[in-house]
């Protein structure tokens, strides 16, 4: 890694002091820089465990469970009840079903009044129907099919009402076909409420019906337990258990199927905004979507030649087709070269340019214009929200594509093991996660008070600064991951350079991850730090999150090198 490439600013104050002229090219801490790099390499290689980054450092408040894990837990509870009450497991299951799988309730009710519970659930201690003494030889009429059947070919549950096995099988089958109600199936005899329990199902039902029955049993267990929720991912069979009681409740979870969602509202994962904001924002989108907003997402005319350009790559840096070749920013349609100090960072384009808008409409101050302005504001945020979402989706596709077509080639070419190439996958996963977070910061920004007191203004300024930095961090990572990789698929490229690439990308990934974690926290804290910038080292900001001070010191600042290489 070129030591000139990145300088990590260790001055924490500098990070928050967005209003003053920043001097990021502060190259005074080379030693720390190198140490940091080593750390980053360690983190980048072999530390990946497939979990969402934002949940990695915080105490994870949820567990992803396989069906078999849950089946085991269910079985344990059944066994417990069966032991404590000295009844069969099937009877214990029937009781648990009746009392919504609460072991406590079952035990309380049972010991308070066993007879009442037995009656309610339909567990008879003695049969009410007494079979003739001379068994085996005797035939009885099955009162379902009306055939005379040998008693040995009949079956009954705890009440003793006999029916032929054939009728039992059909009776059970029809009930299971009908749905989850089969879990509370009763004896076919009119007015008899004897429970057809699990043992009887095992005895009477066909194989496939038994399977469906245990599925229903498991589902009932999961659905009556408030701690569990199914992952809403397509075809996903995992269940996520949420353990309440963290310092603050955040509901974003990431399933093993790689789908991340909010455990509370079941929408897509949406830290740092809360469920309420998500609902509000989605509602707004659906009502405004019909007009302009959706059209703006996928195609835009090149600002120079006017040809429609479709966005098909993840990053915001667009290049028009030859011969035009104009480079522009997808977001603001400004010339790419001008993206820099003006827009809050070279790769960033987050500052909604209120001034421009105001100038334009200064002459006509009528209400219609103001409504237009409102729409413009909404469009600004919506476009960026949607733009990041489609970038996220594209990144998911790109990652899959890369794994499918390039990883093997790269591995052969560089003689690198899969584990050694993990840093590339990791970079992609980080991009996907960051796009998601960034997306939601735009909903956050939309609802952030526009005007108001000094505090509100300083919050907005702080927010836009943080967002801009996040964006430029991410664009840098996205660009490096998306574009530079192709250079290393070329045989001519020396291995040494590939090693540099590894170091660079791993470093960028770590820096970006840390930055975003910090961003999420800052936004979730309601940008409290904005009001007291001088107190950026206040206990809240730094002591509680040891990591946050690290991130500040790691923000990469030099942009010279990447500037030269950014060609699509």
């Amino acid at each position, binding site marked *: 890694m070129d030591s000139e490439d990145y300088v990590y600013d260790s001055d924490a104050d500098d990070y928050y002091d967005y209003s003053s002229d920043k001097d990021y090219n502060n190259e005074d801490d080379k030693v720390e820089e190198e140490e940091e790099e080593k750390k980053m390499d360690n983190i980048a290689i072999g530390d990946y465990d497939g979990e969402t980054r934002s949940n990695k450092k915080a105490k994870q408040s949820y567990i992803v469970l396989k069906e078999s894990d849950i089946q085991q837990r269910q079985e344990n509870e059944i066994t417990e009840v069966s032991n404590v009450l000295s009844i069969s497991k099937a009877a214990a299951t029937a009781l648990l079903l009746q009392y919504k799988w609460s072991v406590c309730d079952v035990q309380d009710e049972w010991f308070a009044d066993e007879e009442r519970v037995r009656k309610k659930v339909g567990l008879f201690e003695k049969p009410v129907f007494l079979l003739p003494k001379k068994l085996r030889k005797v035939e009885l009429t099955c*009162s*379902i*099919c*009306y*055939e005379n059947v040998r008693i040995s070919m009949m079956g009954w549950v705890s009440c003793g009402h006999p*029916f032929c096995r054939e*009728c039992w099988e*059909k*009776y059970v089958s*029809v009930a299971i076909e009908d749905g989850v109600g089969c879990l509370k199936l009763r004896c*076919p*005899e*009119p*007015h008899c409420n004897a429970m057809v329990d699990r043992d009887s199902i095992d005895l009477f039902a066909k194989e496939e019906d038994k399977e469906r029955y245990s599925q229903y049993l498991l589902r009932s267990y999961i659905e009556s337990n408030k701690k569990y929720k199914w992952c809403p991912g397509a075809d996903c069979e995992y269940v996520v258990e949420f353990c309440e009681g963290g310092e603050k409740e955040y509901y974003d979870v990431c399933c093993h199927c790689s789908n991340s969602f909010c455990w509370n509202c079941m929408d897509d994962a949406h830290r740092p905004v809360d469920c309420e904001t998500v609902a509000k924002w989605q509602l707004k989108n659906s009502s405004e979507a019909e007009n302009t907003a959706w059209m703006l997402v996928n195609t835009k005319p090149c600002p120079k030649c006017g040809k429609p350009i479709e966005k098909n790559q993840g990053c915001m840096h667009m290049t028009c087709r030859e011969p035009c070749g104009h480079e522009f920013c997808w977001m603001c349609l400004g010339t790419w070269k001008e993206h820099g100090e003006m827009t809050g960072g070279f790769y960033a384009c987050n500052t909604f340019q209120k001034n421009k808008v105001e100038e334009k409409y200064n002459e006509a101050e009528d209400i219609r214009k103001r409504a237009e302005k409102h729409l413009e504001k909404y469009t600004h945020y919506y476009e960026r929200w949607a733009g990041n979402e489609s970038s996220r989706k594209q990144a998911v596709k790109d990652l899959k594509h890369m794994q499918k077509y390039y990883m093997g080639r790269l591995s052969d070419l560089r003689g690198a093991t899969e584990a050694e190439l993990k840093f590339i996958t990791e970079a992609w996963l980080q991009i996907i996660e960051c796009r998601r977070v960034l997306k939601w910061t735009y909903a956050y920004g939309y609802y952030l008070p526009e005007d108001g007191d000094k505090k509100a203004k300083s919050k907005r300024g702080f927010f836009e600064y943080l967002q801009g930095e996040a964006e430029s961090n991410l664009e840098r990572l996205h660009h490096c991951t998306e574009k530079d990789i192709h250079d290393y698929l070329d045989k001519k490229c020396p291995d040494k350079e590939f090693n540099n690439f590894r170091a660079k990308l791993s470093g960028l990934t770590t820096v970006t991850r840390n930055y975003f974690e910090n961003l999420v926290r800052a936004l979730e804290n309601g940008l409290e730090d904005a009001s007291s910038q001088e107190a950026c080292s206040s206990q809240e900001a730094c002591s509680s999150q040891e990591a946050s001070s690290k991130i500040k010191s790691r923000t990469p600042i030099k942009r010279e090198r990447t500037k030269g290489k950014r060609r699509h």
Partner: protein
Amino acid sequence: MQASRARLFKEYKEVQREKTADPDIQLACDDSNIFKWTALIKGPSETPYEGGVFQLAFAVPEQYPLQPPQVRFLTKIFHPNVHFKTGEICLDILKNAWSPAWTLQSVCRAIIALMAHPEPDSPLNCDSGNLLRSGDIRGFQSMAKMYTRLAAMPKKG
């Protein structure tokens, strides 16, 4: 043989054998289709239906007796649990409380019991349900009696 057909055939034979066993119920199978039945039931005594004869139509599903038959009144009847226009009956044993050990005969018996003991809380006929619920027993009875005379009694020549 289809299980439902076998079972219906047994019921059919039972009906033939004990034709006079229950004087209040006359069950008959459709000539050409064992899955279609009709019944004539006598209005229970000491009710506004006394003296009337009511015709029921049964449609038996393939899954019978695991699933209940569909039954409706063909004769107009003023009763809170019977739809006045369609003759549809609201009776738990014809829905979720069905037992495969019930027969068409026992369904008829249950319907006779329902005629004697209406359930005004699950009305299919709101007018009659409301009369009963508001405590206007006499109003209900006179309406029910009138319809019994109009629809369920042989016209006097």
